[in-house]
């Protein structure tokens, strides 16, 4: 199995070479789709077989240890996420070729990106993991820069490269600290000698920063709403649904596995705090942004926050020896990771379809697409309902487990931890409700209502492969929502390995339970109830049904009939992106420094009055802008060096040399 997966990775990576020469988008995407589907089946088969850890040493790589590949249930689970997303994205792109002049810029890095994600998950030593991780960053950076002529794209690329650099700068020292004696980076060797004391603390902090920045944990999430939308839609889907999960995999691999089984309880604190902050901030921003793909990227930040909270709870439960509850929390996180993979891939592909069919990504230029794009609408509606965590879809199953593990958290017994968890619970509920509001806004403004532009009024449905990809993912959302039990059984080996507990005994085909013998959540029963009610009421009303319906202009307490030059009425006389956001923007104004400015013309001026709503992400205001100021200040100060005469420059070099020699001398003396 590992050999098959390794071959798939190699084939994906090798595909980049003919992609340069061929420039045939259909062929490249068909090949990646087939390879990803094969990988998906292999990973699924591996999970069903429930095998142990298998590793494979390759004869190249680091000279003293070589390159080690390994799979275990955890990496298989994440491979499943990557390949589900990869298959759907590739199928979607089959009939959507990029412009010829950009073909190379997209087709070459695309298979490499997929291969790098899989390589990171298959890594059995620190070097391979870092190689895959950095290759993944680099390939996706190339895809973000697919439109270099666009200044927004360039800005996103620059910020993304900086954040990827930060991630690398944090993760490389992590493996330096983790390395077993003799600079042995193999995971088996690291597990045998886990870090202790200060080194363990540094590993934890650096991992949370390094992997967290890649996953989109606040406050290092600011690059995500810029970079993810800049790429082509199917790549955005991969970046949001799969790449963030690979970063979470690295986090789990290091914190739960490599750092040893004895993490203290306070290790959960950063994950809980940052996770809750990301969840609320991401969901709130998803309500304020005006671009469909940016809204989706912000929703990713929210979901990553939810998963991080689940991971933090699992760490806390493991530290207090509560295996079953730790397994509950970890299962919630892992299940939600898969579910979010389905949801976000579908939503991004839907956003791509909307951009393709409706001609824009901006919410206020869309509207009324539901009548002209029924397939896309159905897909986006299912994914949005799932992202709004509505039963019986898959988003609800994961969030139900997560909330159950939050509700079990007071059992830990520390008063400070209990109060913190109560606050986290309130924030999670806020985030979930905000996410529902964001999804209502996205669907309501983009797909429902009246068209806001002529282009939206003439929207067309997307091609057949794109529809197929969306339909497949929608089926996945529904099936994963109705049958969360079997999925929990599949991921049990992973939780057993990491927190020494599993919840397979509580996960049946019909019901999933938070604990043995407890009542639980029965998604199939809920679905049956919903259908039964509809059928029952329709049967009760069968005599009353009046003949047909009458169509007429909207009522709205006296809407005037549309004038001839505006066949759909004045598009501005309905709610748009800004007006839908207004209540939440005002109610939660302190969180995003929102204010409204009325700019009135003075008497005699002919310009119109303007009402402007301003808000800003606190991570920009309080972290990034001060940091950038500091950087500029440093650069200004360092500028003095350029004015130095040759004598002073030489003196500076000499002084530096003496200083370094002195340090080395002192170090040797110690």
């Amino acid at each position, binding site marked *: 199995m590992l050999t098959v997966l390794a071959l798939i990775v190699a084939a994906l990576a090798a595909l980049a070479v003919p992609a340069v020469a061929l420039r045939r988008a259909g062929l490249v995407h068909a090949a990646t789709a087939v390879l990803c589907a094969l990988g998906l089946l292999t990973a699924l088969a591996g999970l069903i077989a429930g095998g142990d850890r298998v590793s494979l040493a390759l004869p190249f790589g680091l000279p003293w240890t070589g390159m080690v590949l390994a799979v275990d249930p955890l990496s298989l689970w994440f491979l499943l996420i990557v390949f589900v997303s990869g298959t759907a994205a590739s199928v979607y792109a089959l009939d959507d070729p990029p412009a010829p002049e950009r073909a190379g810029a997209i087709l070459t890095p695309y298979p490499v990106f997929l291969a790098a994600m899989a390589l990171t998950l298959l890594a059995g030593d620190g070097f391979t993991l870092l190689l895959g991780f950095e290759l993944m960053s680099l390939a996706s950076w190339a895809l973000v820069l697919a439109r270099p002529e666009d200044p927004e794209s360039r800005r996103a690329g620059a910020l993304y490269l900086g954040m990827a650099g930060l991630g690398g700068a944090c993760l490389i020292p992590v493996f330096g600290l983790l390395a077993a004696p003799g600079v042995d980076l193999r995971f088996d060797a690291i597990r045998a000698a886990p870090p202790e004391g200060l080194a363990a603390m540094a590993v934890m902090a650096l991992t949370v920063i390094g992997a967290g920045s890649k996953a989109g944990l606040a406050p290092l999430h600011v690059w995500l709403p810029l970079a993810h939308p800049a790429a082509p839609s199917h790549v955005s889907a991969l970046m949001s649904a799969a790449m963030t999960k690979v970063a979470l995999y690295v986090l789990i691999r290091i914190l739960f596995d490599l750092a040893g089984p004895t993490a203290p309880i306070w290790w959960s604190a950063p994950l809980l705090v940052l996770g809750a902050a990301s969840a609320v901030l991401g969901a709130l921003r998803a309500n304020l942004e005006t671009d469909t793909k940016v809204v989706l990227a912000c929703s990713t930040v929210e979901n990553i926050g939810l998963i991080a909270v689940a991971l933090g709870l699992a760490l806390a439960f493991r530290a207090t020896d509560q295996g079953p509850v730790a397994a509950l929390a970890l299962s919630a996180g892992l299940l939600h990771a898969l579910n979010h993979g389905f949801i976000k891939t579908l939503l991004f592909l839907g956003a791509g379809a909307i951009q393709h069919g409706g001609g824009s990504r901006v919410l206020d230029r869309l509207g009324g697409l539901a009548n002209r794009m029924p397939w896309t609408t159905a897909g986006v509606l299912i994914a949005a309902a799932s992202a709004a*965590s509505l039963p019986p879809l898959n988003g609800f199953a994961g969030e139900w487990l997560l909330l159950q593990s939050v*509700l079990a958290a007071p059992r830990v017994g520390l008063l400070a931890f209990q109060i913190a968890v109560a606050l986290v*619970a*309130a924030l999670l509920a806020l985030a979930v*409700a905000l996410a529902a*509001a964001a999804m209502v806004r996205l669907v*309501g403004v983009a797909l429902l209502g009246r068209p806001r532009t002529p282009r939206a009024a003439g929207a067309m449905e997307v091609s057949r492969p794109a529809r197929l990809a969306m339909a497949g993912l929608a089926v996945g959302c529904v099936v994963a929502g109705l049958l969360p039990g079997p999925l929990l059984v599949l991921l049990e080996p992973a939780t057993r390995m990491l927190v020494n507990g599993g919840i397979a005994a509580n996960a049946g085909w019909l019901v999933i339970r938070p604990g043995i013998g407890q009542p639980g959540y029965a998604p199939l029963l809920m679905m049956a109830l919903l259908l039964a009610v509809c059928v029952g009421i329709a049967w009760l009303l069968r005599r009353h049904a009046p003949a047909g319906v009458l169509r007429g202009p909207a009522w709205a307490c006296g809407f005037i009939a549309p004038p001839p030059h505006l066949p*759909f009425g004045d598009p501005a006389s309905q*709610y748009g992106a800004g007006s839908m956001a207004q209540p939440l923007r005002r*109610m939660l104004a302190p969180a995003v420094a929102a204010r409204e400015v009325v700019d009135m013309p003075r008497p005699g001026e002919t310009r119109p009055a303007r009402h402007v709503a301003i808000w800003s992400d606190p991570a920009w205001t309080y972290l990034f802008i001060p940091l950038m100021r500091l950087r500029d200040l440093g650069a200004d100060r360092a500028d003095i060096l350029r004015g130095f005469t040759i004598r002073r420059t030489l003196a500076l070099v000499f002084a530096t040399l003496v200083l370094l020699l002195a340090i080395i001398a002192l170090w040797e003396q110690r």
Partner: protein
Amino acid sequence: MRLFGAVVVQLLHVALMFAAAPLLIGLIRTAKARLLGRRGPPPWQPYRDLLRLFAKRPVIADSATPLFRAAPWVALAATAAAIALVPSFAGGMLFGRAADLLVIAGLLGLARVAQALAALDAGTAFGGLGASREMAFAAFAEPALLLSVLIFAMLVGTTNLDAIAAVFRDVPPGLRVSLGLVAIAVLAVAVAENARIPVDNPATHLELTMVHEAGLLEYSGPDLALWDFQAALKLLLWLSLIGALFVPFGMAPAGSTPLAWIGGLIAWAAKVGVLALGLAAFEVSIAKMRVFRVTEFLGAALLLALLAAVFLFVSTGLA
């Protein structure tokens, strides 16, 4: 035999809920009219309204999509599924093991989202007002609700409504400060969720109250009847839920005889009746608040629930 009893109780419960929901609305309207010195319509007026609406031919906006017709069905199905889980006169119903509080909240969320989307569907300003405010209020109601569930999960060890009601009925928890605070929080959430005064005014649908009714402005005929029926079911659900959580006394235990059901029925009717009269009295004695004051109203509920949680942590920590 026990299973048969559970099936019968479940069926009777659903039939009772469907039959009683319009009466509840009628009773509250009559009580409010009497308190205001008017005679008001008879309590069974909502049945007449529903029948009249069901017989009419609906008029639908040109810009509406198929979702417009589907939404009331989804919302009604979700609300009815939720109410099938909330015990009324007897515990141990067929679906009792599935009556999870978070699932009930999720089903109500499904109904809310269906309504908000339907409101946006025709593309009118009123609908947008209603949808955006409804979703914004929910963002403040949900945290208070989840913290209340946290309290029950700590006290009973499960989030299953049937189990919570059974435990509290058999072993009354006594007067706990936490439960008192949670009761206030849940009442506030119920008022907001059902679009009652002071959050919203169910009697009008114009400028002053542009939340729930504003979203239904485009509906007519049978679709409107479905929405009205859904709103009635939702109110009954919340009153039954509050009864089952805080005063489960008198409810017939699982596997009891039909004679005990009658006792349970009387107790349930008394509980819902008192709550309905209380709601009517509360509504006539208070003015509707400004939209942006609702944040403070629900924020206070959230703080009370948080305070209740802290009290509970401290008291269990000391014990």
